[in-house]
């Protein structure tokens, strides 16, 4: 009887061997991990599509909003701190990537409490990042009145002198050079583009008023950071589910070194990786 069972098992084993019989793992990675890699590759294609649209449109415009001017607000009413807030956001996401690595490492040595603790840290990091992004969007939409189709951030192409002030930073008689940025303010639902006189170049002496910046900026910014934010959001949801599963001891029973944590880890690092490039094209260049 016992030998019969043995031979059955042996038969099943030999049947599953060989590259085309499902016995070996292609690329020595489990099905789930391999498919996660290919999902991430396909996701990279989607993000690249967005970044290609952004790059082509940005460089086809005569002017583009200067990131150091657009992204210079900080919570607590602090202004003119270029790139400070997005740097904080970047560090939050990097830190959450590190806590994710720690969770995977604890998983490899089957330490349930360690996995749950570091996954919770990662979830907190993800939520903090989402909170920061919500604040950034709120500032742009509510205070600076940027929408997907209206971009109040403009850049001067000529030197000139303002003929009126805006009650914020610009006073009557202030001068500006080509390349200087401005924000058109909105009072009681009315746009208030400032009038100025050109002082140099072929239009010298002409009176003009501030023009809106390239329309595509708002749409590109909200769609790309929004799509990334949605990835962070769904990442947090999956992290929560897997954290609860880990805490319930589900992965202890699977005895595969918490592979599920490793898979969600791959996804989480990918989200961080995409942010590296969003940070590059929107804020640094």
């Amino acid at each position: 009887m016992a030998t019969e069972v043995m031979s059955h098992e042996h038969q099943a084993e030999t049947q599953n061997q060989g590259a085309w019989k499902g016995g070996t793992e292609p690329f020595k990675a489990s099905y789930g991990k391999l498919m996660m890699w290919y999902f991430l590759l396909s996701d990279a294609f989607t993000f690249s599509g967005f970044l290609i649209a952004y790059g082509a449109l940005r460089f086809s415009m005569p002017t583009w909003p200067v990131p150091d001017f657009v992204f210079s607000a900080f919570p607590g009413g602090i202004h003119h701190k270029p790139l400070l807030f997005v740097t904080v956001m970047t560090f939050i996401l990097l830190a959450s990537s590190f806590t994710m690595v720690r969770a995977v490492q604890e998983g490899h040595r089957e330490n349930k409490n360690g996995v749950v603790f570091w996954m919770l840290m990662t979830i907190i990091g993800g939520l903090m990042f989402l909170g920061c992004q919500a604040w950034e969007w709120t500032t742009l939409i509510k205070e600076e009145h940027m929408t997907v189709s209206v971009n109040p951030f403009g850049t001067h192409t000529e030197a000139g002198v303002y003929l009126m002030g805006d009650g914020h930073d610009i006073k009557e008689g202030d001068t500006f050079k080509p390349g200087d940025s401005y924000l058109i303010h909105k009072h009681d639902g009315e746009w208030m583009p400032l009038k100025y006189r050109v002082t140099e170049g072929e239009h010298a002496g002409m009176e003009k008023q501030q023009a809106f910046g390239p329309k595509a900026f708002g749409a590109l910014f909200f769609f790309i950071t929004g799509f990334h934010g949605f990835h962070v959001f769904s990442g947090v949801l999956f992290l929560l589910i897997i954290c609860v599963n880990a805490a319930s001891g589900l992965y202890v029973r699977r005895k595969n070194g918490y592979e599920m944590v490793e898979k969600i880890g791959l996804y989480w690092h990918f989200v961080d990786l995409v942010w590296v490039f969003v940070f590059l094209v929107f804020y640094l260049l």
Partner: protein
Amino acid sequence: MGHLSYEASKRVATKTIGILAVITIFEVLFALLGKGYLVEGFHISGWITGFVMITLSLVKAYLIVYEFMHMKYEVPGLVRTVLLPTLLLVWAIIAFMMEGKYWNVSRVRVKNDTVKAEDAPKPQGSLIYNINESNL
């Protein structure tokens, strides 16, 4: 994984996050320096800052993929199937930025040509006008 002991992999992770943090701070400071925010009147050409930023971002991407995502420990076949298409994508992004620059130049050229054409004597009549006339 499984190639490193728990303690060793912990050290690698700490070192990697340190390098990533330092690169990020350097990138931000370099971007601000290049645009003249740190030293009054001091600018660096956009081509140089752009090149440095893209290179450093690719270094960051390498560290995340190889150290955090453990690509280092995968077999060459998997590495190639994932990374070769990604490299083509990076090339596509850079190529389309160049293409956008060309659109910009062409747009200025078309605008200048149009201004010149408006100054030139206007041709009398047009093909469409003649067709409409014959229809009447």
